[in-house]
Structures are given as structure tokens and as C-alpha cells.
């Protein structure tokens, strides 16, 4: 291309190009149906379900098992339920959902939706579409049970879909469990579906929450925040508790703490063992010490060793 032609190309302006925006006019917020308004109905129709099933069984689950080999305890509790359930788990990593789905028996795995924060997973059309397609995510509000998100979740439970919900309202910033919000209890009381408490241990090591932006770190812009959002292979534990159902006349306000207590007990079990966890309700084992950030991090239990898989001997061996 001659230099003249290039120059001419460089001087192409409005209206041949997109108009510039006057600096004195504020840009209007983009009006897109994202966030809580994103309609995920399409992701539960058969084409999307089929695509997700293929993706889950062939990509998500094998990949999760590869990078996060899991010890699953209490899976029997799940095999006994057949209706829709509410799975309430602690939340420390984006890997949680993959690990949890991989741990679910097949009859639940392919008919489950994940309650995902509308402000994070549904903030752009692309993210919202991917979340709905890959995870079967539905948008909810983190902090409260809004009428709209509750209504859509209840509708799904009535349609036979199980719901994965992280009652903490977001990933833990320090690895320890935080107080539960009332969403899971509310849905269970309203729908009658049982709640399965689950404790996930070690997922933060697989895919940690992105550290604070450098400029926002307490140490200032020079802070080292090395542990980036990179995936590392690490063993994890999935502890599944017994199904909880609200007692006769029990409301969400009293049922909620029972769910939280059940997950906390599983958390203690992850740190100790089944028996100790039941005998010693030491809150610090689940919630961490009430201290500065580094001491809370310091106090986190060491990862549980995952039994190396012994290859089974060929059967029957004939000499």
C-alpha cells in the first residue's frame, strides 16, 4: 500500500468511523439484560442441558478430578435422596462448584443449578451466558433473599431441579468459614426440599481467590501478592452431611443456624476426625481464631493427606 493511501486511511473519520463521545456529555449506563434480570430459562432446555451434560461429564468432571483429586466422605447421604435437594456448602474458591458437581451422583449432577452472584457471574452477557451454559448458574443477590431470585429458585425446586447454594454469600477472603445468610433455609422452609450440608476443604489451594489489587493492599503498591488466580493441583476433601429438613413449624430463622452448625461440624471433621468433631464443638476449628489476618491464615490446618491410589492388581492373576 502506498504511503499516500496509508495516510488517507489514517484520516478516515466520522461518519465513516464511529462518532466520538463529547467529554461534556455523561455516558448513559448500558442497558443490557444482565445481572439479576438475566433470563436463564434457555439453559434448562434440552439442547443446553445436553451440551452441559456432555461438557460436564467429558471436560468439567475429568478436569476437576485431575487438578483437585477429592476424598469424598458421606456420599451415601446423597445416593439415598432422589427428589430435588438444596446443597449448602462453604465457599472458598471458584473450584468449589466443579468439585461439588464432580462429587454428585449422576442423578443429581445433571439436574442441578448453581445459585451464583448476579453481580459477579452475570455482569456481562458473555459471562452470564457461559455461567448459565457451563454451570447451569442462576443469578441471585449475595446479601439478601430478594423476592425475584427466591421466586425463581423456588420454581426450579418445584420443577425438580436441585440447587447448589453457598450461604456465605461469596468466597471466604481468608480460608475460614463465615456466617451464613438465610437463603438456603428460606428455600428449604418454603419448598420442603431437604438441605444437604457440605464442607469443601482445600479448594482454595487449587484456585485461590484473587488477592487484593496491589494498590489496595495494606502494604501499599509495593505489596507482594504473589498467589495469583493460577490453578494448582492440590488434593481436596468433600464432606457430605446428612440431609436436614425443617422441623414441623420451624421457620427459616431457626433452621438457618442448624444448617450452619451442620456445615461447621463437617468443617471440624475436616480439621480433625469424625469423632473429635462431634465431641468438641470448638468454633475456632471452623471459623478460625478471632485475630489479625495473618494469624487467621497461620492457624489454617494443614492439608489432609490424600491416600495415594494403589493400582488394583490384575484379577484374577494366574501365576
Amino acid at each position, binding site marked *: 500500500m502506498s504511503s499516500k493511501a496509508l495516510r488517507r486511511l489514517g484520516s478516515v473519520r*466520522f*461518519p*465513516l468511523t*464511529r*462518532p*466520538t*463521545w*463529547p*467529554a*461534556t*456529555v455523561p455516558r448513559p449506563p448500558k*442497558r443490557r439484560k444482565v445481572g439479576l434480570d438475566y433470563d436463564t430459562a434457555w439453559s434448562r432446555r434440552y439442547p443446553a442441558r445436553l451440551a452441559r451434560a456432555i461438557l460436564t461429564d467429558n471436560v468439567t468432571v475429568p478436569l476437576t478430578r485431575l487438578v483437585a483429586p477429592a476424598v469424598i466422605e458421606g456420599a451415601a447421604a446423597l445416593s439415598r435422596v432422589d427428589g430435588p435437594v438444596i446443597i449448602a456448602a462453604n465457599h472458598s474458591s471458584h473450584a468449589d462448584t466443579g468439585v461439588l458437581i464432580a462429587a454428585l451422583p449422576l442423578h443429581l449432577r445433571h439436574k442441578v443449578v448453581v445459585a451464583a452472584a448476579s453481580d459477579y457471574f452475570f455482569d456481562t452477557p458473555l459471562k452470564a451466558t457461559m455461567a448459565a451454559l457451563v454451570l447451569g448458574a442462576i443469578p441471585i443477590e449475595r446479601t439478601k433473599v430478594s423476592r425475584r431470585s427466591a421466586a425463581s429458585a423456588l420454581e426450579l425446586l418445584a420443577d425438580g431441579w436441585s440447587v447448589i447454594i453457598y450461604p456465605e454469600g461469596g468466597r471466604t477472603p481468608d480460608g475460614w468459614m463465615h456466617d451464613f445468610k438465610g437463603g438456603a433455609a428460606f428455600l428449604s422452609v418454603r419448598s420442603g426440599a431437604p438441605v444437604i450440608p457440605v464442607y469443601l476443604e482445600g479448594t482454595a489451594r487449587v484456585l485461590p481467590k484473587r488477592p487484593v489489587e496491589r494498590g489496595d493492599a495494606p502494604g501499599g503498591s509495593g505489596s507482594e501478592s504473589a498467589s495469583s488466580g493460577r490453578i494448582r493441583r492440590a488434593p481436596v476433601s468433600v464432606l457430605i452431611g446428612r440431609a436436614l429438613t425443617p422441623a414441623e413449624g420451624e421457620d427459616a430463622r431457626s433452621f438457618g443456624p442448624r444448617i450452619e452448625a451442620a456445615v461447621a461440624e463437617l468443617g471440624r471433621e475436616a480439621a480433625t476426625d469424625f469423632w473429635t468433631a462431634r465431641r468438641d464443638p470448638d468454633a475456632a476449628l471452623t471459623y478460625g481464631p478471632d485475630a489479625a489476618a495473618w494469624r487467621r491464615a497461620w492457624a489454617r490446618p494443614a492439608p489432609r493427606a490424600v491416600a495415594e491410589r494403589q493400582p488394583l492388581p490384575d484379577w484374577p492373576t494366574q501365576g
Partner: protein
Amino acid sequence: MRPRPGFVLEVDRSTPPTLMWKGESFGLVKLPAGSRVVYAPEPFEALEDPEGAIRHALEHPTGDSAPLSGLLRPGMRLTICFDDISLPLPPMEAPDIRQMVIEAVLDAAAAAGVDDVVLIAALALHRRMTEPELRHALGDRVYDAFAPHGQLLQHDAEDPSALVHLGVTKHGEDVEINKRAAESDLLVYVNINLVAMDGGHKSVATGLASYRSLRHHHNPETMTHSKSFMDAPASELHSANWRMGRLIRDAGVSIFQIETTLNTDTFPGSFQFLQKREWEWSWKDRATFLAASKALDAAPPKMARQMLHSIKAPHALRSVYAGEVEAVHERITADVWAQQGVAVDGQTDIVTMGLPYISPYNVNSILNPILVACLGLGYFFNLYRGKPVVREGGVAILFHPTRPEFHPGHHPSYIDFFEQVLTQTTDPVAMHEQFEESFATDPWYRHLYRTGHAYHGVHPFYMWYWCSHAMKHLGRVIIVGGDPATVRRMGFHPASTLDDALEMAKDVVGPDPTLTHLHTPPLLLADVT
């Protein structure tokens, strides 16, 4: 979503060029940084059920008036008058609002058993409408029901037998209006209030008047003291009309006034970019702009005019009130301001205006040089309340090719006005004294007005008088792209580009002037403080 209000943009480096109308075409003009551009409010939502709203208005009148059905009785004489081709602009997509209102009135009249009904186009001294134009305004159903029986008339201001002199106001103004309308048991007037100037007593006192009556307010003295036409309390034109209107009322003419506002949805479908803000143009808007502007530039003026005059506006009914003239007009004018008003802070040294292809007096016709002046200085300049957008002694820069082209059928007296009057004087007062009478009483012009489709002989004078206030107020008028000889004959200054015009303006307003551009159409009314 609620339509966004109008606003004043301050041009900076990142502001894209501004759309500028220049007669039968448009282009993009880069305004100097620091200039202001007044953008019209976005069109209001249309009423969901216009027919229902019209029926409701007729049966729930505003002011001291009975419902329409209560005013109708068998054996009465009913006359329905309506605004002519000059409104709305551009002509609206069918069904026209006049058709919708008149059909509702006729439904009520038929239900009441009224036999003697006549429809009159309130032309004043405008040209008679053609059959297709009447059919468009009234709809085929109304046209075919009345025209074949001679019950669809066009007001003839030169037929002594069709006029009646109702009296003289205390200011000595003759009030002479259409006889059939004045002597009817009920006169229903159907108005389109496109701008704040329209309607009120002006409808009957001007629309149905004769030259003898009109000359009392269509003169340089009144026009100079109308500041502006859009602001009735400050408009001498309106004061005169109100005096006449009250005399008509006191003479026993029973008027049921129906006034309507349309939203400012001015351009249809693919031409919507003409009413959008440039920085919000989509690729489609830009492509249409390029295609349309290149096509219009390349086309001969006649073809470009045909293309543009074929545009019908998607105007929709915004509000309708019916009943007593003054009460109705007060409410409707408030609605017009609500739709079109834009707050503008302070005056400016220079005002720029891109003049489009259409004005009230050249629908399906040519915007001749006199109408160019009238559109810029009579209409656009007067789109204000409070103070003019441009300061006294400031400069108006108009964009228009201003070719010496005239429609011989519609504007015959304009040709002679251009050749005989403007070559002698451009002073409204001088031409009023020396030439007006001879043009107004010329039998040939009168014949063309009465039998053809020509504007009255005196009409070019009135157009020039409309400019009186602006011409007195402004230090200089520059027409960018205007034919030099034509522009000079009108006493204005031609310039080839905006930069040239700005240089010329600096001679008058000094270096470093402030500039404000009126981004219209769509219509806006500047509320200047």
C-alpha cells in the same frame, strides 16, 4: 424509557461534527470548540389510544363550555374549520390528526342528527390545498362525503359575499371573517399546535380572516413588537389576535375549539438519525447519512426536493383538549413547552442555524429566497422565550443555498417581490408604505389566489415582515453556501464556509465571539435566561 429532555452541549475536542441542514441536503460541520449546541428534547411517547383521547376531550371540555354532544342538535348549522397545509411539518403519516378529530366530531354530529355541516380549510391568505392534500388531511372518507356536495370549502379571503364584518376593536382593527363560519350555530375549529405560536384566538381571527382584517397585525410595526411569536404575553401579534378573538366571541360566534399537540417525532425509520445526537449514531445511521447526503448533493434540486417532500413525519398525538378557546389554548401551550422547551443560559454573540427544505409555506413546493429569510429570521430566530438566543447586535449565520428559484404556481407574487421590491428596498417599513397596497390589490394575484393554488399577492410582504424583529435585533445576517447575488439582494452577506462566516462575523461582534447552534429540526423552544 422516559424521553430525555433537551440540553445544551458544550462543544469540545471530542465532540463529533454537528449535523447541519442546508436546504435540500445536509452535511456535518465542525463547530469551534467552546460553542454551544442546543439539542431538542426527545419525542414524547405517543398516546396509546388517540381516538379514545379525542372522544374524551370532546365530552369533557376544558373551560366554560358544554360537551360537544350537548352543543349539537338537529336543524343546526355546524361549521368545522381546520388548519391548512402549513401544519404539521413535515406533513404527518396518515391518518392525519385532523382526520381523526374531524371524524370524531362528525360521529357526534351524525348521532345528534345534524344535517347542515360544512368543512372549511382555514387558509387565510395561503394557497388553496390540492385534492390530494385535502384527502391526506381529512381522509378519503370525509373528503368523499363532503366535497362532492360542495360542503368542503377553502376559505376565500377575497370573496366579499363570503365574508362578514363583525366590528372594530378598540384599537381600530377591523374584524372580518368567513361568513359561513361566523353565522353558524356552532363553529368547531380543529387545530394542530405544532409550536407555541399556533392556536388560541389566532385560529379564527387569522385563519378565517380577510386581507382587510389581517393587515392590522401582519405589518412591520406589530411584528417588530412580537418578542417572540412563541411567547404570547410578549407578542403583539397575539395581543391583536386576542382582541379580535374576543370581539368575535362577543359578536355571538359560538366557537368550540379543539387543540392538539403532536410529539416531535419528525423523521421516519431510516431518517431517524436526523433527530439523534451525533455521538449516538449507529453504523446504520452513519451509512444512511452518507448515502442520503451524497444522493441529495448529487441530485438536481428538483429531484432532491421531491425526495425530501415525500417524507412523512411519524408525528403522533400527544395531547388534545376541547372547549373554550382561551382555557384550551392555555393548557395546550403548556404541553407544547413541555415537549419542546430547552433551558438556555444566557445569550450568545453568534447564532447558527441549518435551514431545512421545508417551512410552513412551501409544503410540496420550493423554499424560495424570501421563505429562506422567513424560515431563518422569522421562525428559527423566534424559537425563544425571554430573550433571543443571540444578543442584540449579534450575528445570525444561516446555512442554505438560497438559489433564486420560485414556484410560479404557488408563489407568483414572490417573483415580482424579489425583482421589483427587494431591488428597491429591504426595509419592511418602506416596502409596507410603498409597495404593499399594489401587490395586495393586484387583480391578477387575486385571481391566482382564488382560482389556482397561489399564495395571496401580499404574502411575500408578510414573510418579510416576519423577519422585522430579527433584522432590527441583529447586527448582520450571513448565509453560508447562499447564492451571492440573491443573498446580497436581500441585504444579507454570503459566505462559502463557516470559517469565512465566522471571520465576517468578527467584524461585527469582535474577536473571540461566543457561538450557539440551534440543532433543529426536531422543533425546540429556547427558554433563554
